[in-house]
C-alpha cells in the first residue's frame, strides 16, 4: 500500500509544482490561492471553480497596475549549442531599449522587455514563447534561427502578437505568417546577390555550392542554384552536416571537379573548418560565403591567410563609413568594449522598428502594432533601412564585403527592389 501513497504524492506534487511556476514575480499571489484550492479538493468540496477564478483576477490585476511601461518579450539562446547569438542579441536589445528610454520612451511610456532563454532548441523555444505570450507583452522579438521560428510561428500566429526574428532562411517568408517579420535579409535575396556577384563580377564558369544541411544552408543553396540556372552557369552542389569537423572529402571532390568559384552557405563553426581545410588542401577558387564569416568572433578563430580575399554577402560590417552604422559601432564599443556584429545589430534594428511601429500605432495593442508594422517604411538601423515588404521582410539591402588581412571591407551595397 505504501506504493499508493507515493503515487498519490507524485500527482499532488505535479499540480502544486505547476501552480508554483506561474512566473517568478507573480509567485506570491498564485501560490496562496492554489494551495487552498488544493486543500479543498482533498475534502471533495466542489467550489474549486470559484477558488481558481479568484486567483485568475489577481493575476491580470498585477499586470495592469504597472501602466507606465510597455513590455515586449525576447527569446534568445543563452545556453545550448549557440550561446553566442543569445549574448550578443541581449546586448543589442538592451542598448536599443536604453537609447529609446533616454529619448523619452515610446508614447510617453518606458519601454521594457522580459527575456527568456530558449537554448536554441525548438522544444524549449515553444515552451519559452508560450510563457512570454502569457505575460502581458505587446510584441515579441523572436527566437533566432529558422528552425526555432518555424517551431513557434503557429503559436504566435494564434496569439496574434507580432514577432520579429533574425533568422534568414527562405522558409520564413514562405511560411507566410501574418504576424511574423524577418529583420535580416532573407537567404533568397542573399543567395541571388552571391550568385550574381560570382558570375558577373568574378566571371565564374564552374561554381561549387557547399551548403550546410540545415534549413539555413538548404535555403541558401536553393536560392543560389535557382539563380545559377537562370544565368546558365554550370555548378556542383555538395552538403555537410552541421557540427561536421572534417570536410576533406567534399573539398577534394570540389578540387577534382575543377571549380573556379565556391559559394559556401553554412554557420560559424563550419565556416572556420572549411576555411582551414580549403587553404590546406590548396583549393584555388574565389570564395563567396553567407553572412556569418565576417563576424569578429569567427574571424578571430582563423589565420589571416585562410580567408585572404574571401567575399561575403552579409548585412552588417562594423568597418562601414555609413554615419548610422559608424555611430552604432561607437556606442556599442563604448558600452560593451567589443565590436558589434550581425546579431547585435540585427536585433538592435528590430527593437527600433518595434518602437517605431508602437509610435505609429499609437497604442500597445498587439494587433494595431502588427498593422502598423506592415506599412512602416524607412526606419534607420545599423543593418540598413528597415521597411516592410509584402512578405514581411524588413531588410532589403545587403552588403558584399571582401576580407583582406582578417578585415572585412565593403565592396558594394546591393539594394533589391521590393514591393
Amino acid at each position: 500500500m505504501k506504493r499508493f501513497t507515493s503515487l498519490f504524492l507524485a500527482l499532488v506534487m505535479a499540480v502544486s509544482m505547476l501552480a508554483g511556476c506561474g512566473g517568478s514575480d507573480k509567485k506570491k499571489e498564485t501560490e496562496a490561492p492554489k494551495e487552498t484550492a488544493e486543500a479543498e479538493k482533498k475534502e471533495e468540496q466542489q467550489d474549486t471553480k470559484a477558488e481558481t477564478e479568484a486567483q485568475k483576477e489577481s493575476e491580470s490585476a498585477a499586470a495592469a497596475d504597472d501602466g507606465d511601461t510597455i513590455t515586449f518579450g525576447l527569446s534568445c539562446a543563452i545556453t545550448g549549442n549557440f550561446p553566442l547569438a543569445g549574448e550578443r542579441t541581449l546586448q543589442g536589445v538592451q542598448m536599443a531599449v536604453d537609447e529609446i528610454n533616454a529619448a523619452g520612451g515610446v508614447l510617453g511610456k518606458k519601454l521594457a522587455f522580459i527575456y527568456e532563454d530558449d537554448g536554441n532548441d525548438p522544444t524549449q523555444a515553444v515552451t519559452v514563447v508560450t510563457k512570454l505570450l502569457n505575460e502581458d507583452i505587446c510584441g515579441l522579438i523572436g527566437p533566432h534561427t529558422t528552425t526555432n521560428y518555424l517551431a513557434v510561428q503557429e503559436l504566435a500566429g494564434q496569439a496574434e502578437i507580432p514577432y520579429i526574428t533574425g533568422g534568414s532562411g527562405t522558409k520564413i517568408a514562405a511560411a507566410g505568417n501574418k504576424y511574423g517579420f524577418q529583420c535580416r535579409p532573407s537567404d533568397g535575396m542573399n543567395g541571388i546577390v552571391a550568385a550574381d556577384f560570382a558570375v558577373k563580377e568574378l566571371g565564374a564558369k564552374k561554381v561549387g555550392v557547399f551548403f550546410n544541411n540545415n534549413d539555413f544552408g538548404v535555403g541558401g543553396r536553393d536560392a543560389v542554384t535557382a539563380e545559377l540556372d537562370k544565368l546558365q552557369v554550370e555548378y556542383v552542389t555538395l552538403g555537410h552536416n552541421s557540427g561536421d569537423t572534417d570536410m576533406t572529402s567534399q573539398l577534394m571532390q570540389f578540387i577534382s571537379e575543377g571549380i573556379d568559384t565556391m559559394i559556401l552557405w553554412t554557420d560559424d563553426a563550419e565556416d572556420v573548418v572549411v576555411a582551414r581545410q580549403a587553404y590546406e588542401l590548396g583549393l584555388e577558387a574565389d570564395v563567396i560565403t553567407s553572412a556569418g564569416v565576417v563576424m569578429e568572433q569567427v574571424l578571430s578563430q582563423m589565420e589571416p591567410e585562410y580567408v585572404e580575399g574571401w567575399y561575403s554577402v552579409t548585412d552588417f560590417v562594423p568597418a562601414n563609413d555609413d554615419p548610422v552604422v559608424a555611430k552604432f559601432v561607437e556606442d556599442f564599443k563604448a558600452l560593451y568594449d567589443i565590436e558589434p556584429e550581425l546579431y547585435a545589430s540585427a536585433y538592435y534594428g528590430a527593437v527600433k522598428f518595434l518602437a517605431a511601429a508602437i509610435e505609429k500605432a499609437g497604442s500597445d495593442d498587439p494587433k494595431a502594432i502588427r498593422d502598423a508594422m506592415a506599412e512602416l517604411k524607412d526606419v534607420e538601423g545599423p543593418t540598413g533601412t528597415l521597411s516592410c515588404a509584402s512578405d514581411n521582410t524588413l531588410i532589403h539591402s545587403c552588403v558584399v564585403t571582401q576580407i583582406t588581412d582578417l578585415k572585412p571591407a565593403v565592396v558594394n551595397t546591393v539594394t533589391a527592389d521590393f514591393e
Partner: protein
Amino acid sequence: MKEKKNVKIALLAALFVGLIVFPIVDKNTYHQLALAQTLVNVIIVLGLNFITGLTGQMNLGTAGIMALGAYSGQLMVQKLGMATILTIPVAILMGVIIGYALGYPSLRLKGVYLSLTTIGFSEIVRLVITNWADFTGGTTGVQNIPALNLFGLKLDATWKLTVFLVIICAVLVFTAYRIVNSKYGRVFKAIRDNIEAVEACGIDVAGLKIKAFTLAAIFGCIGGCFYGFLMTYLNPTQFTQDLSANYLLMMMFGGIGSVPGSVIGATAVTLLPEFLRFTKEYYWLIFGIITLLFAIFLPYGFISLFQKEKREEAGIFKILNDRKGKRKNAGVPKSGGMR
C-alpha cells in the same frame, strides 16, 4: 487495510479530477503546456521503466523511439492525408516494429554493449530523418501539424489536448502499474536478477525481452506522437542524445523500477528547469547540480524515501548508517554494499 485502500483510491480520483479541471480553469497556456509536456514525459518514462527499470537493460535510444513515433504518424497524415486520430494506432504499430528491431540485439548483448547499440540506433534515426529531406522534410522539419481530431471533436486549443492527455496518461499509468505489479513485472525483474534460473523455470527469456522492448517502444511512440501534436512542429534537431539521457535521468530521479517513481521523476525533471528559470543565466547549471546530488546521494530515487530497505542499500542513508555504526535490521549482511 480495506479502508486505507479506499482512501487512497479517493485521493487518486480527486487528483485526477484536479488535473482535468486545472487546464480548463487556468487560462495560462504556459501552465497547460507545462502540464502536457509533463504528461508526455511520464508516458515515455513509463515505457523506459519496463526495459531499464525492470529488466535492467540500458536503453539510451529513447530519442530515436520518440522520433519514429512522432514522424511516422505525422508523415502519414501529411503525405497520405490520413485522419489524425489514426496516428495513435500507427504509433503503436511503429512501437511493435521498434520493439523487435531493438529487442533482437538485446538477446545477444548485455549492459554496455546494448547501450551502445541503442545510441547507434538513435543517431542513425536522427541522421536519416535529417538527410532524407524530400520524404521527412529534413531539417526544415514537419510544419503546422494539424490538430488531433477525435471523430469530429477537434483538439485545437492546448487545454483541450491537455485534458485528453490527462485521460490517456491516467489509462497508461494504470496499465503500467498493473503490468509492473503482475506476473510480467515480476518476471522482468527475475530476468534482471538471474537469467539461467528463469530459463530453468521453462520461461522463454528471449520472448519476454522482446515483450519488454515492445512495451517500452509502444509507450515511447505514443509519447512521441502526442509530442508532435503538442509542439505542432517536428525537427530532427529535437531528438538528440541529451534527450535520451534526460529520460533516464527522470526515471532515476523518481526511482528506478517503480511506476510512482517514474511519475514523480518525470514531473520533477520536466518542471524543475521551468521552476529555476528565474535564475536566468545559471538555471541550467543549478539544475545539473541538483540532479547530480540526487544521483549520488539518493540513487534509488525519490521513491526510495518510502521503501525502508531500498533506502539503506545505497546513498546518503547508507552513509549515515555506516557512520552511526548500527545496522538497523540485523538481517542485512555486514558487508553492506559489496554485492
